[in-house]
């Protein structure tokens, strides 16, 4: 559905025309905004900063569009650029004082009967993971990508992706069982 929407928004050959047509570019932004913004939001735990970074990623996309040839290419490019942008950002931020967690309210909870407190705790724990492991976890559980696709999206060896996933899950299980006494 997603790629069909983008395919309709993109010209068949190249996407050069989209930079001349704001409505088509806006349609493309709408198609991908949830993915880019959520990756940034889960990674940074700061909605305002996440929006700022998502905007920068889309502006970069706007300039890059003539070189992107298909909706799949756009999707892959967006994942790659967002992931690396976030990693770069957090590496720069390490040299500065940590920004506080954003207090903005989360959107309405999903229909699943999950514990909101547990979800919040999981988001905090994921956000506290090392940069590469954090991006891997976000692509795995937010974007539902398998390890092979994550490796492709991040230009990372698949063994490294699997190792990040295993270590992160073990860490989360350990922390959850210690902090909440939850058996996972």
């Amino acid at each position, binding site marked *: 559905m997603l790629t069909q929407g983008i395919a309709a928004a993109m010209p068949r050959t190249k996407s050069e025309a989209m*930079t001349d047509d*704001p409505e088509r*570019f*806006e349609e493309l*932004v*709408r198609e991908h*905004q*949830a*993915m880019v*913004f*959520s990756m940034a*939001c*889960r990674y940074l735990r700061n*909605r305002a900063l*996440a*929006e700022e970074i*998502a*905007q920068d990623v*889309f*502006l970069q996309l*706007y*300039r890059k569009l003539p070189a992107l040839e298909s909706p799949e290419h756009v999707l892959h490019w967006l994942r790659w650029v967002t992931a690396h942008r976030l990693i770069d950002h957090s590496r720069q931020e390490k040299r500065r004082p940590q920004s506080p967690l954003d207090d903005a309210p*989360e*959107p309405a909870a*999903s229909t*699943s009967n*999950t*514990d909101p407190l*547990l*979800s*919040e705790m*999981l*988001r905090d724990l*994921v956000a506290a993971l090392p940069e590469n492991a954090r991006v891997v*976890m*976000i692509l795995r*559980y*937010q974007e*539902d990508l398998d390890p092979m696709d994550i490796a492709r999206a991040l230009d990372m060896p698949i063994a490294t992706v699997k190792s990040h996933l295993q270590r992160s*899950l073990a860490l*989360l*299980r350990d922390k*959850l069982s210690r902090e909440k006494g*939850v*058996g*996972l």
Partner: protein
Amino acid sequence: MNLDEELRSALRREHPSPRFAERVVARAQASRAPKPAMPRFIWAVAIAAMLVIGFTSTYEYRQMKAERASRDAVIALRIASEKLNLARDKALRREN
């Protein structure tokens, strides 16, 4: 409890604030500065001037070469004519 499911739920996608796409498009449009016409014009004039100078200097160089060649040819003819005159004089003297 299934950790995979809990993570999927916790990390589900969410949308940015309303009018996010409009803001992005506005920034993109603003970043598209009008293409500067002057530099292109200057480039065209510079290229035309260089071509004119090139052609002119080539033409002058060729003309100079041609003039020198014609001067050399006149000198050569003069020398040849002098030698022929000398040879003719010698021949006339022997006959006499």
